[in-house]
């Protein structure tokens, strides 16, 4: 049945007349690889054209690099109790969902499509609660830290997608968002190596997670006061 419906789906799609065409690459060549590379470099140029977007991608990659260890190292803080790990995980993702619900409510304040004009605040919150989670063994406090940390991480991702949709035209949107997701994946992969290496060092798991959180909060706070961050999304 699945195979038959797939054939029907393809047949129906083939009958369709209307379609949305995007921009073609600047330099048309005969080589498929050259055309593909032109299209990719075209999207990179489009991304680089917006200063605010470069900053947002950087902040988001930082949040992934130094914020994801909070979630990936949870098992080290559970005293070999799987139930506790599950509770921690639920708190983290519940925070992310709550953050998005809050964003829906908060979005009524936005009049021009930009949700958050202070994108460095969420990574500061994430870094701060990473430190609190690592340093305090009180269970309710840790749950709260995870809830708010997960929410801040989700918020930073939302802000990146929001700015990208706001600034990038339709003809480049899939490629620029692909660039963003590649940054994210690469940062999360590096985060595993970073956190694992630090955890094996003299600082241990608790110390390394605190250090990571502190670094994230510090860099984000510094970026908040940097002059280039003041570029507003109206530069589009």
């Amino acid at each position, binding site marked *: 049945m*699945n195979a038959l419906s797939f054939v029907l789906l393809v047949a129906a799609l083939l009958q369709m007349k209307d379609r949305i065409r995007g921009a073609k690459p600047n330099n048309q060549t005969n080589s498929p690889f050259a055309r593909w590379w032109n*299209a990719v470099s075209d999207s990179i140029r489009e991304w680089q054209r917006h200063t605010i977007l470069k900053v947002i991608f950087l902040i988001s990659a930082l949040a992934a690099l130094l914020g994801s260890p909070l979630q990936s190292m949870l098992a080290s803080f559970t005293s070999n109790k799987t139930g506790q790990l599950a509770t921690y995980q639920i708190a983290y993702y519940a925070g992310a969902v709550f*953050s998005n619900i809050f*964003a829906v409510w908060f979005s009524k304040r936005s009049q021009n*499509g930009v949700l958050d004009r202070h994108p460095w605040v969420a990574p500061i919150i994430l870094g701060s609660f990473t430190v609190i989670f690592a340093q305090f063994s009180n269970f309710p406090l840790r749950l709260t830290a995870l809830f708010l940390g997960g929410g801040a991480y989700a918020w930073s991702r939302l802000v990146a997608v929001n700015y990208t949709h706001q600034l990038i035209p339709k003809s480049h949107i*899939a490629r620029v*968002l692909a660039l963003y997701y590649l940054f994210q994946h690469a940062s999360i992969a590096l985060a595993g190596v970073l956190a694992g290496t630090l955890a094996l060092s003299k600082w241990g798991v608790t110390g390394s997670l605190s250090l990571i959180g502190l670094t994230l909060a510090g860099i984000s706070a510094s970026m908040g006061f940097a002059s280039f961050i003041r570029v507003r999304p109206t530069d589009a």
Partner: protein
Amino acid sequence: MKKCLVILVCLNFFMQKIVEARSPTRFASPLFLCRSSSFLQQAFAPRMGFSGRPSPSRIWIIKRYHQLDKDSWYFVVGSGISDVGGYVQVFSQAWLLYKLTGSGSWLAWDATALAVGIAFGLPFAATWADKTGHREYCILSAGQFFLPAALGVLTLVHVITPTIILVFSFINGLGQSLGGSLFNRIAKDIRDRLAPEKKSTFDSFGQFKINFARMIGPLLGAAIFGQVMSRVVIS
């Protein structure tokens, strides 16, 4: 086990079709999609109060969403359910792999295969999505529905091996990069038609459904497989 896989395959398939059928390109509605689309429309539209009428709902989040148009609603709900199906599938594949091997390292390889598939496919898929538009892309994206079907068949006939699952995970990653790029493009189309003050609301709902799926997908998968699969022995 077998029944669950078949159910998951069908579920995921219909979720994807609902999204594609209601995409903002307004392409022709295939006959076999009309039933599900009408069902959704009749079930939810009167309560949501589309077409500019005030929403009778007392739930503020529904009121908020009511401000968006119908396509936004179809996109968020349809792709959200599809995301849930995707996470259930990722969970079930990992679970199947663990039952077959009993080794945690295979799970790490499985996650790596999926991530490599996504990373490898994204630059090509996104370029394609931007260049060719929706229709051709939909056709090729629909090809990923063969993956869970094939996985289900191979499990049914007991020829599934850990290596095959890894290959499926890699191809699944490629499929996700295709589908993800398509959804991003559709989301941009919908967003551009909204009034400026509603754009960030749409973005918020778009991220909400992803995180909701991240939370619900594994829980749903665990509930299904914990209750049903434990009674079925995998030989």
